[in-house]
């Protein structure tokens, strides 16, 4: 069953405070978090989080089209066998 709309999106409260602090500092930094369950809010766009996958903190650069998803969706916990041979990475 889907989450009730009246509750709003779930996000761990301490993340909001840290995100605000990080944005105010304006430094190039990674916010390391364990909270994979938190929803990505519009306030997080432009920040980089290190989301723990049980092994390491994978960098997640938050963009607008990620809003509404959970942090854990971008930090897979299973071993990934490899990207395609002709795959390209774009520098953000």
């Amino acid at each position, binding site marked *: 069953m889907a989450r009730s709309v009246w509750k709003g999106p779930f996000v761990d409260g301490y993340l909001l405070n840290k995100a605000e602090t990080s944005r105010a500092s304006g430094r190039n930094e990674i916010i390391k978090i364990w909270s994979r369950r938190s929803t990505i809010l519009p306030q997080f766009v432009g920040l980089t989080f290190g989301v723990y996958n049980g092994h390491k903190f994978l960098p997640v650069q938050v963009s607008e089209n*990620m809003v509404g998803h959970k942090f854990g969706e971008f930090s897979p916990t299973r071993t990934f066998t490899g*990207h395609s041979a002709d795959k390209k990475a774009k*520098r953000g």
Partner: protein
Amino acid sequence: MADRLILMGVVGRAHGVRGLVRVHSHTADPAELAAYSPLLDDAGRAFTLVWKGEGVAELRDESGRPLADRTAAEAMVNTRLYVPRERLPAAGQDEFYLADLVGLAARDPAGAPLGTVATVHDYGAGASLEIAGPNGASLLVPFNRASVPAVDIAAGIIVVAPPAERLVAPPAAEDAP
């Protein structure tokens, strides 16, 4: 980089009795593998690949002859198919092939060595580089201009400015990590 080979596919099991084989393509779009023909194997033999169905292909040797029968197809099982790096199309502005990034030497802005790029992670939230340090420790940095200000594929060097880290542990009352 001139003679570097990129693994593009692997021959699977034989299909039928007419010399067809299953091919596991490692390209982003599996059907694109045929466009990279001729493909080279470990021994340097060139093959032209023609798709005959979903995942099923005909391999033709340099003289254009297909594999004769199932026995010839079975002899090709587990053959790795490569293309020379220079045959891949040019990447766009600020785009890099993962195959080019892996193995580059990472240095900090002052020129001190940080290690070697071991892996490129990309799970839909921007690419990130995993740099294996000389002491076995690994460093994960987002692949953006702030953290990776310079990439010189020809020289085999990237400049990495590791971002500061801010640890956000849940308060003690919350469920501990």
